[in-house]
């Protein structure tokens, strides 16, 4: 009986078979690009679940300790929080420009926008550091030395526990993002990207937008909700 399973075709008769950026186990550039993009989306699904655990804690404790959460929220600095929100939104815009430049093969535009994005990311972290140090000064760090003279100290401590867990984890993602951007910047400086190969820029952009979106949720939940 002839074996129907096996038939000889030589792996993907596409013109871009010789593209130096094509890894050997993919048939063509389109397959490689689709795989990478899907991979990043799957990874972001993982990230959503990761932050989801903390959002669940937030929702529960906000329900239990309404007054403590409102009071704790008043203690956050609205100005720095809002400024950071603007900074991240602008950085998403520059990131989008960077991806577009990469698609057009505009190396200069790519690098300029990457540097802008990284600068804005660093500014965000700097402002976060200012906010954190103010919290240390005011002794609202959960633990033995927590001091609270307003309503519901236990609820307020739960609020600050969640505040530090969530914003800390977000800041860690920003630091990782800056690391990824450095690599992308280095690669674009070396001229690794062109109109046919820009997937790394694209999926790094997806990551960056995701981290921004997390902040877009964190800002109203932590800074705004319950504020009069």
């Amino acid at each position, binding site marked *: 009986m002839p074996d129907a399973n096996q038939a000889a075709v030589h792996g993907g008769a596409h013109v871009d078979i010789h593209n130096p950026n094509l890894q050997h186990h993919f048939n063509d550039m389109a397959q490689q690009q689709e795989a990478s993009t899907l991979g990043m989306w799957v990874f972001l699904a993982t990230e959503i679940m990761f932050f989801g655990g903390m959002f669940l804690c937030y929702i529960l404790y906000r329900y*239990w*300790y*309404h*007054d*403590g959460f409102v009071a704790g929220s008043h203690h956050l600095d609205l100005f720095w929080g809002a400024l950071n929100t603007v900074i991240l939104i602008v950085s998403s815009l520059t990131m989008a420009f960077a991806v577009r430049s990469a698609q057009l093969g505009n190396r200069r535009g790519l690098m300029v926008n990457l540097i802008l994005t990284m600068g804005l990311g660093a500014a965000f972290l700097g402002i976060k550091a200012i906010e954190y140090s103010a919290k240390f000064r005011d002794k609202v760090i959960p633990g033995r030395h927590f001091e609270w003279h307003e*309503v*519901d*100290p*236990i*609820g307020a401590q739960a609020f600050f526990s969640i505040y530090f867990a969530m914003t800390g984890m977000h800041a860690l993602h920003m630091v990782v993002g800056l690391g990824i951007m450095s690599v992308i910047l280095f690669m674009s400086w070396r001229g690794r990207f062109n109109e046919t190969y820009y997937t790394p820029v694209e999926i790094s952009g997806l990551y960056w937008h995701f981290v921004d979106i997390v902040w877009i949720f964190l800002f109203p939940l932590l800074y705004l909700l319950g504020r009069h």
Partner: protein
Amino acid sequence: MGRTLPLFPEAASTFAGNVDALYFFLVAVTAFFSVLIAGLVIFFAVKFRRRSPDEVGAPITGSLALELLWTIIPLILTMVMFVWGAWVFLDLARPPRGSMEIFVVGKQWMWKVQHPDGQREINELHVPVGRNVRLTIGSEDVIHSYYIPAFRQKIDAVPGKLTTMWFNASKAGEYHLFCAEYCGTKHSGMIGRIVAMEPDDFEQWLAGGAGSTPVAGGEQLFTDLACVTCHQSDTGGRGPVLNGIAGKAVLLADGSTVVADDNYLRESIMNPQAKIVAGYQPLMPTFQGLVNEEGLLQLIAYIKSLPSGGSGY
């Protein structure tokens, strides 16, 4: 070795029989399907064993009727289990009104008990046969679990809240008490015995020397902790009147209402500003660290003992 080989636990509470009946039903289902599947697998594997090296099986791809059959039958069986199990559970989980209330506190690694008449026990619990007994359980440190196999009853002792279990002992005797939730080094030493006694014997045991009752202990604490300065028996105090509050709905400052059960009373002492009663200021400090779990249970007992006389809400 010469030891006995018990195969079935003693049944000594009114609902042990219900739990066991449910158990036997599930054992029967399990045995039936295990034997059926194992029998079919072995029968097929022998009957249709390969007889020549190149032989292949018959070309059968499936059968919708069979798929439906073995989806629906298990579905029906599991729904029977669910309903029966829920019925038994709701009986186990809801203490009847008027049960005799005993306070239990778990701590590493012992169970401390106080009876309504004041008797205290450690790692033992004396109860009368034929009476509904309700345990209100707290924990001073980590999670424990109060487990009486002969009564088929168990509940966790969770720090930061109170849990309840109830039973009605049906047979006098001594039974095991285990801590079932892992709680550290001497977890397996956190055991004791439940002594179910005939009512007369129990009365005799009770008479054997009572300390102060939980209510009296709570009253003492109420004075010692100066609760009384704010919680007076008329509406003039800075805090709400506590007379008759237990079990009633309380209107809160944010407009919602909450039932003043044991856990609400406990929270109001440990984290008073979590739920502010309408018409009062959030002035009360936390008593965390000032009163232990046993003291809390006594305070709650005292508050529940206050006659309703003050104005309600």
